[in-house]
């Protein structure tokens, strides 16, 4: 949380990106605490590793100094944020407590996955079996999204740099 707040405050974008990497790593350790080892693994490698490298790449292509905003109203946005946060907090009073085994979420399909996965799929890691087999469609769609993102990035910045139209007009 501290790193997130610091990332909000700082203006030097290099520091912001590095703090974002630290924030990802901290949240990955939080995922381990909450028993989500697969997710923690992914978050540590993706958030703290690759995302930081991509952001640094962008900074090296653009600029690393954030300018002081010209006509921004920080108070207004702070007010909006606080009101939204308060409304959300009010909403949490109806949600089941943290770590409660009687939550409705634990009584729908999860017991089926946990109990029958060994007989039906035969692999111990339930996350893998749900990911690849029970919810194969989701993962197929997700792989397609990643594929599409790669195509998008290639179209946007993949080719050699051409002189943009504006430069031509100016010269």
């Amino acid at each position, binding site marked *: 949380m501290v790193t997130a707040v610091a990332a909000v405050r700082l203006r030097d974008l290099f520091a912001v990106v590095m703090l974002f990497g630290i924030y990802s790593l901290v949240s990955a350790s939080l995922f381990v605490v909450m028993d989500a*080892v*697969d997710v*923690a*693994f*992914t978050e540590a*490698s*993706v958030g703290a*590793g*690759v995302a930081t*490298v*991509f952001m640094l*790449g*962008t900074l*090296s*292509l653009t600029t690393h100094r954030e300018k002081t905003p010209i006509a921004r109203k920080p108070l207004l946005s702070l007010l909006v944020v606080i009101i939204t946060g308060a409304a959300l907090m009010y909403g949490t009073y109806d949600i089941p407590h943290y770590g409660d085994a009687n939550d409705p979420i634990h009584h729908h399909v999860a017991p089926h996955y946990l109990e029958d996965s060994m007989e*039906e*799929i*035969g*692999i*111990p*890691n339930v*996350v*893998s*079996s749900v*990911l*690849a*087999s029970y919810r*194969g*469609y989701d*993962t*197929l769609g997700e*792989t*397609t999204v*990643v*594929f599409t*993102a*790669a*195509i998008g*990035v*290639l179209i*946007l*910045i*993949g080719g*050699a*740099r051409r002189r943009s139209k504006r430069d031509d007009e100016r010269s």
Partner: protein
Amino acid sequence: MKHYSVPRLMTKLLLPLILLFALYVQFHGDFGPGGGFQAGVIFAAGFILHALIYGLDQTQRLLPPWVLRIGVSLGVLIYASVGVAGMLLGGAYLDYGVLDSHDPMHGQHLGILLVELGVGITVASVMVTIFYSFAGRGR
């Protein structure tokens, strides 16, 4: 980075270990934490490290962009064709139980392995492709 011998040497030492670890994560995902996504990202991170230390040209000689373009589509193709194979063998789309005629459990194993392989190939190629685009743009 040409004149810093310590990072260069450490990269040489670490790179095989990173790639080996990625393969371990890929094929051990059934039993421990891990799977195609993580393996793909770690694999890509190995090549990104190589590019950061030795320069983009060296890495592109090692792993040319056209290989990646093929890899990006090959992964999705493997995933989709596993589904179609299940359909041809008489099951539903993405139903791996029919892949092995004797034991549905073996079929499930095989299906998950292939699907994770497809995911891993796609994710690794996509990450390295995006990195190449960002790095190649700066020149």
